[in-house]
């Protein structure tokens, strides 16, 4: 509440309805003098209002400021002051949360109900203030609880746990375990994100071709390899086909090159140019 300025007296000259543009139009009446009890320098008002956590907080402030007991609020007076703030906020085009207007309506309703004469027949009727008082009390309770929580000693500000460097640890820390299902789920997610299922052509080549591409590239890491040496006859026809497809794929991707020194000389497969020069980047 440090933003609350001292109430300033209106200028002594003039009798209120002085000429000049009105400060605000309140309930259709031009307001040239700010009510004494809620006058706040306009530039401070915004800061001031930001210190309220909502309509209940504002009401509590109005009650506390006059040293009133929550259980004994003069509804008419508090309503008048509350409306004053609301209208001022609206006039100043401050963003006004809808909750403030709901509260205004509730106050107006309570006020009007209290003005109605009570007959014996409605003696049992709930005091119209009861619900408001209950909410104010409940809010005050948690406003205080929040303050108490803030006052508790806490880490980072008041408490510092002891954390020492561990000794050099003997024994290796275990490597993380991964299940195949986790891996597949990860892939599925990334593919869904990339929307590959719909927009990309699904590669139909069997994975073994991709794998063989890797093995061929690996073999070429040591230098050019005779084309024929890439094939393992024990793998049978299928193995030979897979290797051949892998070589074609690699050629297509410009990842390998074929070289033949002269006609009918052995064909050599090598990693694409300069690949054998740079080992690492």
């Amino acid at each position, binding site marked *: 509440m440090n933003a609350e300025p001292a109430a300033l007296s209106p200028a002594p000259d003039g009798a209120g309805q002085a000429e000049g543009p009105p400060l605000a139009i309140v309930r259709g009446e031009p307001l040239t003098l700010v009510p004494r009890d809620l006058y706040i320098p306009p530039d401070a008002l915004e800061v001031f209002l930001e210190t309220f*956590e*909502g*309509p*209940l*907080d504002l009401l509590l402030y109005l009650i506390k400021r006059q040293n009133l007991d929550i*259980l*004994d609020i003069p509804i*008419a007076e508090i309503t008048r002051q509350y409306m004053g703030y609301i209208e001022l906020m609206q006039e100043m085009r401050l963003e006004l*949360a809808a*909750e403030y207007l709901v*509260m205004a309506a509730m106050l107006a309703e309570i006020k009007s109900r*209290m*003005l*109605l*004469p*009570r007959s014996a027949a409605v003696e049992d009727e709930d*005091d119209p*203030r*009861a619900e408001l*008082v*209950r*909410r104010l*009390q*409940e*809010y*005050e*309770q*948690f*406003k*205080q*609880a*929040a*303050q*108490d*929580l*803030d006052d*508790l*000693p*806490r*880490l*980072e*500000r*008041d*408490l*510092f*746990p*002891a*954390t*020492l*460097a*561990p*000794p050099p640890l003997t024994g290796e820390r275990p490597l993380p375990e991964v299940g195949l299902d986790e891996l597949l789920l990860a892939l599925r997610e990334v593919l869904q994100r990339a929307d590959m299922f719909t927009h990309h052509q699904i590669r139909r080549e069997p994975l073994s071709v991709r794998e063989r591409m890797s093995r061929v590239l690996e073999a070429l890491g040591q230098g050019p390899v005779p084309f024929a040496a890439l094939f393992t006859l024990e793998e049978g026809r299928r193995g030979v086909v897979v290797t051949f497809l892998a070589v074609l794929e690699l050629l297509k991707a410009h990842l390998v090159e074929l070289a033949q020194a002269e006609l009918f000389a052995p064909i050599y497969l090598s990693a694409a140019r300069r690949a054998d020069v740079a080992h690492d980047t």
Partner: protein
Amino acid sequence: MTPELLCRILEGALLAADRPLSLEQMERLFEDAERPSRAELRKALDALAQACDDRGYELRQVGSGYRFQVRESLSPWIARLWEERPPRYSRALLETLALIAYRQPITRAEIEAVRGVTVSTQIIKTLTEREWVSVLGHKEVPGRPALYGTTPRFLDYFNLSSLDELPSLMALRDLGSALDPLPPSGEQGRK
């Protein structure tokens, strides 16, 4: 295993860990053959607590277990170790946290009903990211809103061993009898 060695192992583990250790976690430091009983563990912890009596730190039980922490009386000096100011929390966040702590399990709408304003998504996110608050379940009403509650980490942060240690709430007064009787007719200020 001698009680002295047990004490030293626990002391070393509590100091090296970057989080409070529960009794279960302490038990798991030992192989089956050497594992101390619960009674032995507690006795060793008592001895450790006493051994710090005249030191700069103390053994404290918080939400998720035991930890050594520097005595609060030394904070004015210790706080100078860090250049940055500790984080401050807005009233809106603290009020929301207080409601979750005291009224859990609680929905966002219930928090809003007490505070009289909407609770920003950012606040719930901050509380969740700090691991002070988690979703305990969903309320079986239309929309199945999440029910929030506090975590052991919340207790750790605020140096509490259980929710029982929270400051007690301000008492609510009964308004039925306390409210002035309304005037029978429109006139106010009759008295």
